[in-house]
């Protein structure tokens, strides 16, 4: 093989490598930039609970909140779970994404909260109940979105301190937010108000 032929051959190998690199980048980018899987709140509870039991044997779940936007029928890419240890009187939060604990932190404030009931409807059922009652109308009328979903016991239930509720907060630019309290045991809307 003469020198010119060798140079041509090398150039073509280099071009081939470049094309391979471009193809690979194109193939990989949809994976790295892919949408993370959204899930309902209960799906992340097992992982959070396993971590919490390492932190404190007596840890009980006291609060759940979406850490990323609520999408679709009541799912989020990330949910936050707050546990309370009666023995140590401390609270610790775990943020779950795709079945993994990606953040864990001690709550830097006193937060003595009662545990949520063992049986609570999932975030999808809660959103469906709220939408059916008032949420859908609010969204359509004011261009609103569901901003926050939280699960707690007693916080928003006047007269029923033992009741575990989902609280859904719909927001709309330029309009007061819509609060909807859904009984997390029976799946019924208990209260709504604007504020």
């Amino acid at each position, binding site marked *: 093989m003469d020198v010119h032929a060798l140079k*041509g*051959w*090398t150039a*073509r*190998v*280099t*071009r*081939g*490598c470049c*094309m*391979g*690199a471009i*193809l*690979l980048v194109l193939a*990989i980018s949809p994976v*790295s930039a892919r949408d993370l899987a959204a899930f309902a709140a209960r799906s992340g509870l097992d*992982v959070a609970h*396993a*971590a919490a*039991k*390492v*932190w404190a044997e007596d840890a009980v779940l006291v*609060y759940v*909140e979406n*850490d990323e936007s609520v999408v679709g029928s009541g799912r989020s890419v*990330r949910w*936050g779970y*707050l546990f309370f240890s009666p023995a140590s009187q401390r609270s610790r*939060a*775990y*943020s779950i994404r795709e079945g*993994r*604990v*990606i*953040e*864990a*932190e*001690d*709550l830097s*404030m*006193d*937060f*003595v*909260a*009662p545990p949520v009931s063992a049986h609570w409807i999932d975030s999808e059922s809660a959103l469906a109940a709220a939408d059916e009652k008032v949420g859908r109308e609010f969204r359509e009328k004011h261009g609103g979105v569901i901003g*926050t979903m*939280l699960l*707690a016991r*007693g*916080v*928003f239930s006047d007269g029923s*301190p033992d009741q575990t509720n989902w609280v859904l*907060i719909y927001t709309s630019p330029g309009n007061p937010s819509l609060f909807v309290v859904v009984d997390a045991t029976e799946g019924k809307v208990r209260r709504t108000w604007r504020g």
Partner: protein
Amino acid sequence: MPTSSLLRHVPAVLGMTVWCAVVLSAPAWGAEPVAPSGMPTEVRVERVRPKHEKYFTLRFLKANRDFIRARLDLLREEPGKSLADAAALDPRFLAYRELMQSALAGVDSVQASEDMRQRRELFASVTELGQLESQLDQLELLLAAQRTRLTALQADFTGHQRTELAVVARGLPADATMLSLTLTLEDGAPVIVTLTDAQRQSLREGGVLELFHGLIEPRDQVIALTLTGSRWPGGDSGFVSIAPARDRLTFLQLDFSRLQPEQGATSLRASTWLLETVAGLTDGAGAQP
């Protein structure tokens, strides 16, 4: 297309194929080191604590904490006088006692039957043989009750592997004397292990020393290591990233044998792996390489 023209494209296709094969066979970019069961994976000991992306969590709660705490305060009952402390009993322990009592209840019956049996010298009739059969039935019931109790104990204490970390050490540096090692888990208190002469001797002869064994949260985290010894009187620190798998026992092995006094903790060889199965524990066939 003439053959010569086709041949001109062969190098380009060849180059692209080789390049793709090399890249695709490499580990995924940015992937966490995964330790398959039983297979140790080398992990680096860093000089500087690796940065961890901070994710916000529970924003609404934090933004409205005064309001929510005020609402919770309304729910709280204040007792007029102090109450005696009493921890809740684990219902399993009550169950063990009941199981034991039911198992022992059969013992008296068996003993009485045994006395009666000793008073008779011969089994003279079919009726007596029937009684013996009845006694054997009672013994079987007793055994069944004990088996139930043991099964409950086994299920509660040996059946469930929780997320645990075991840190073990092996080897000793040739040019330095190791005095102690401090391990600090994220959000945890430091664990200081001071090496005794016997432990140093054991390590020198190829032994393995358990430095830490305990529960750990199943998440990516960084362990801080601080060595002290003749060459590092003030201590020398390094950081190891691990990703303990949920409900598995993760091993982290620190090999001191190639420790370079000048480089300190970062020259430690560290590797991690998972215990294969719970069965591996019971039959002594652990997964340590």
